[in-house]
């Protein structure tokens, strides 16, 4: 069963003559343990796809299923529970709450879901440890480097038993070394069974994904096929 499935998803905004077709008939399926990158120029519909996948917005037409559950017609309360328990979000500008420590930020989704504070904090700390920033647990966001803040944001996105991770330009504000590190951490989360959709304009970061989907003018214009193993790159050749 796919963790995320989009079937014929379209999204339009506004009315004629100023109607905007943000997405047109998009099909996408993401399995557990798979990272899919979505690439495309500004205005191609990448962020719209992500907000629809994350149930933050409804499509104009088409179906969205998360862990086999159709979002169409789902009561608001149930959708909210889905967002708290199943879906994790990683944003370009981290979106950490400035008044909470790293540990409190990481534990927040569980606390909002009614998990007892000690248990939520323990899970948050475990998530920070998996991302190599447990020693920063007591610091506030403005006391952390950009790379550390993004690790805390990822910890918050994967804390508990999240199945789906949605990331919008997660490395956008970081230098190339830290950006690479963020993608490595997301990839490791997928290796632990999380399904991830990462929106990025950066081909080097998209290359971390198992599959790259290209969007253009709201439609899928192509996607990578599963490449052969890296040993095919190292065949003997002429040195120029």
């Amino acid at each position, binding site marked *: 069963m796919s963790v995320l499935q989009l079937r014929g998803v379209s999204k339009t905004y506004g009315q004629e003559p100023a109607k905007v077709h943000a997405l047109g008939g998009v099909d996408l399926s993401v399995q557990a343990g798979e990272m899919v990158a979505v690439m495309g120029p500004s205005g191609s519909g990448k962020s719209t796809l992500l907000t629809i996948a994350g149930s933050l917005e409804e499509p104009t037409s088409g179906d969205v299923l998360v862990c086999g559950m159709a979002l169409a017609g789902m009561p608001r309360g149930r959708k909210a529970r889905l967002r708290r328990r199943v879906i994790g979000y990683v944003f370009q500008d981290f979106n950490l709450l400035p008044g909470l420590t790293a540990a409190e930020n990481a534990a927040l989704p569980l606390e909002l879901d009614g998990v007892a504070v000690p248990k939520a904090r323990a899970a948050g700390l475990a998530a920070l440890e998996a991302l190599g920033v447990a020693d920063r647990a007591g610091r506030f966001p403005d006391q952390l480097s950009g790379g550390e803040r993004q690790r805390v944001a990822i910890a918050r996105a994967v804390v508990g038993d999240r199945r789906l991770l949605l990331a919008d330009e997660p490395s956008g504000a970081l230098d190339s070394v830290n950006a690479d590190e963020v993608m490595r951490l997301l*990839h490791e989360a997928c290796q632990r069974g999380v399904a991830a959709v990462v929106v990025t304009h950066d081909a080097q970061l998209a290359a971390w994904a198992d599959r790259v989907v290209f969007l253009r003018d709201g439609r899928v214009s192509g996607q990578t*096929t599963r490449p052969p193993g890296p040993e095919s*790159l190292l065949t003997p050749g002429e040195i120029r």
Partner: protein
Amino acid sequence: MSIPHFLLALLAEGPKYGLQLREEFEAGTGEVWPLNVGQVYKTLGRLERDGLAESDGTGQDGPQKRFRITPRGEEALAAWLRTTPDLTSPPRDELVMKVLVAARVPGTDAHEVIQAHRQYLVELMQQWTRLKEGEARDDLGLALVVDAELFRLDAVTRWLDAADARLKRAAAGPSRPAPVPAPVPQLRRLGARR
């Protein structure tokens, strides 16, 4: 590719045999560019001829012949490291040519041509990224080579994105009168033709 200078750098560490030079070259470059031993001896022959290296002088190429760098070779190596390559003339790039051609051949969708190449490049980058996370994690030479390749391919994909956007804007036509451009220096005529 500066094989002679890399061999000089290896000789600068101490006298070495031909086979040893081949092994150390391949190990130092992550085994991305295999060298055959004939090419090594041919290059060493040229270095000897140019006075940049000298050998024990058995007269025959083979495992018994050891090579060392000369003082002139050390100067040549230092000069090469200090000298920037001539990048003034853009090389004739097949992909640039393809996009230029696709933009003018009637009935060709230049955006499809661009997308096909973009997809191929990203698939290549996926393979290099897997290598980076596998063998290259513990091999500095290989990691540097893989990084260089990833940045090179990334630069090409960025150019494809820019070309795509430029072609789209050109097809949409000017939305406002273009400003009168300032005079441009005739750079195209200053570089050497290849």
